[in-house]
């Protein structure tokens, strides 16, 4: 990239079922804390990009009253109505334009406020699928999971192993909503069946929370307290879910390839030390291993069985607990970026993995991961 850009500050609120705070206060806490961690003040901010959703917030132009808590008053400000990882992309572009040196990026939502599964239904084709009442986030993900399992011979236990790993990891993340000490495959397999093969512990939990990161370019980044440099980014959009093969994540693979080319990564399975993946449902993490080139096509099940992605494995995935541990919609992918940055700067606390020099973060939007974005971050 012409201009080097780094994540120099970050903060997440605790993820809760029903946060005892308004959205404005959640955003204020995350934004102030992120800015403080960057060692900057509001005067230093050039541009503010938020990720929020009119439907989730129950108001149109839902960023409007976030001007105050995001620090955006009388500043360059805009919004994406997608995952926060895309807000970070927008901010990155603003910095690469050369017009700004510092960007504040915020994602937030409160599932306790909106009807949890209605937004997913609202994303369906209104003239047919929505009228038929069969598809929703869970049944759509179940169709994706079955398709993947059938093509590649993946077992329910291998999918459950993702949930057991991530919910177990979450115990060491004080901000996680759902943490299960010593979570086992048997425990996951015993949780309530929602839509086969998706069980309750393999599906995201309804979550309140916010995440903020501070991006900086040029001298500001070089002089910062800490820096996780953005080495590459890639993003692609796939077809509507009934019009594409569901047994693979084509847009994620393309996004990863683009990102790796930019970051100069040729062997992701060796060169990447850690990944934070947006697995809204457990099977998506296995599919992502393949799309991200961590293992060969169809080998996602074997890869989790090998222990490679455990906290003490060769390529730990989701030491934070991932999205299965907390899914504040619009903040989830941004939180992956924050977590990946924390691992690079050595500030991940109890879930810190040793020696992380190159980390990957993934965000997604849309039913069955229709759109995917991948970042590679590096240290000095």
């Amino acid at each position, binding site marked *: 990239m012409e201009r080097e850009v780094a994540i120099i500050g970050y903060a997440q609120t605790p993820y809760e079922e*029903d*946060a*005892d*705070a308004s959205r404005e*206060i*959640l955003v204020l*806490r995350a934004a102030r804390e992120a800015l403080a961690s960057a060692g900057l003040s509001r005067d230093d901010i050039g541009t503010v990009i938020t990720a929020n959703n009119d439907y989730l917030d*129950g108001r149109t132009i839902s960023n409007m009253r976030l001007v105050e808590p995001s620090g955006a008053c009388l500043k360059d400000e805009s919004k994406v109505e997608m995952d926060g990882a895309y807000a970070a992309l927008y901010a990155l572009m603003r910095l690469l334009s050369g017009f700004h040196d510092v960007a504040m990026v915020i994602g937030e939502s409160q599932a306790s406020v*909106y*009807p*949890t*599964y*209605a937004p*997913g*239904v609202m994303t369906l*084709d*209104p*003239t*047919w*699928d929505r*009228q*038929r*009442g*069969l*598809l*929703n986030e*869970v*049944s759509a993900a*179940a*169709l*994706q999971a*079955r*398709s993947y399992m*059938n093509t590649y011979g993946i077992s329910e236990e291998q999918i459950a192993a993702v949930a057991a790993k991530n919910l177990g990891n979450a115990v060491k993340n004080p901000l996680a909503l759902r943490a299960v000490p010593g979570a086992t495959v048997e425990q996951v397999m015993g949780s*309530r*069946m*929602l*839509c*086969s*093969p*998706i069980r309750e512990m393999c599906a995201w939990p309804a979550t309140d929370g916010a995440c903020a990161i501070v991006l900086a370019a040029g001298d500001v980044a070089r002089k910062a307290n800490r820096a996780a440099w953005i080495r590459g980014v890639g993003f692609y959009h796939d*077809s509507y879910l*009934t*019009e594409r093969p*569901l*047994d693979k994540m084509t847009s994620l693979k393309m996004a990863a390839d683009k990102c790796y080319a930019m970051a100069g990564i040729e062997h992701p399975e060796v060169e990447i030390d850690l990944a934070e993946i947006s697995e809204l449902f457990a099977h998506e993490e296995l599919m992502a291993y393949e799309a991200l080139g961590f293992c060969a096509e169809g080998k996602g099940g074997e890869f989790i069985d090998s222990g490679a992605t455990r906290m003490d494995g060769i390529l730990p995935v989701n030491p934070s607990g991932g999205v299965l541990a907390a899914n504040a919609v619009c903040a989830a992918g941004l939180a992956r970026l924050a977590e990946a940055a924390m691992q690079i700067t050595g500030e991940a606390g109890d879930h810190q993995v040793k020696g992380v020099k190159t980390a990957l973060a993934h965000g997604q939007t849309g039913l069955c991961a229709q759109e995917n974005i991948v970042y590679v971050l590096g240290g000095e």
Partner: protein
Amino acid sequence: MKSGEGLKNVKRMSVPFAPVFNWSVGNWMEQFFDGLKQKKILASKCAACGRVYLPPRMICERCFDKTEEWVELPETGTVETYTMAHVGVADNGELEDLPEPQIIAMVKHDGADTCMAVRVDAQDCNVGLRVKAVWNAEPDGVLDALSAYRALD
């Protein structure tokens, strides 16, 4: 946020949000619906690449152009993937247990390149199962003319 004692859920304000939008279904879906009334399954076809869309789409995303041809497809197809749904989304937007589990499948009609998400009336299902459309004898409207699919004998 732990900023004060007894602050938990001080007050909840209900904000109704129930707009009704009147979408045009578009000429293509209208033809599809008209077909269903006559128990015909009509799909749109891209003249450039030959891709057959069911439900019909007006635009071929690959060719970046309108689909101009129509083809009538047989009532038979193949299950590409399926789920046994134990829950659905209730009117209040939360998950609720279904009275009976139901099989939802992505069915690719013979001759189509895309899938339709449909209900399959069967005890069991598997990927590759051959199925046939079941027409509703007394549909309420056009949307439930095609009621479900059943396994081909």
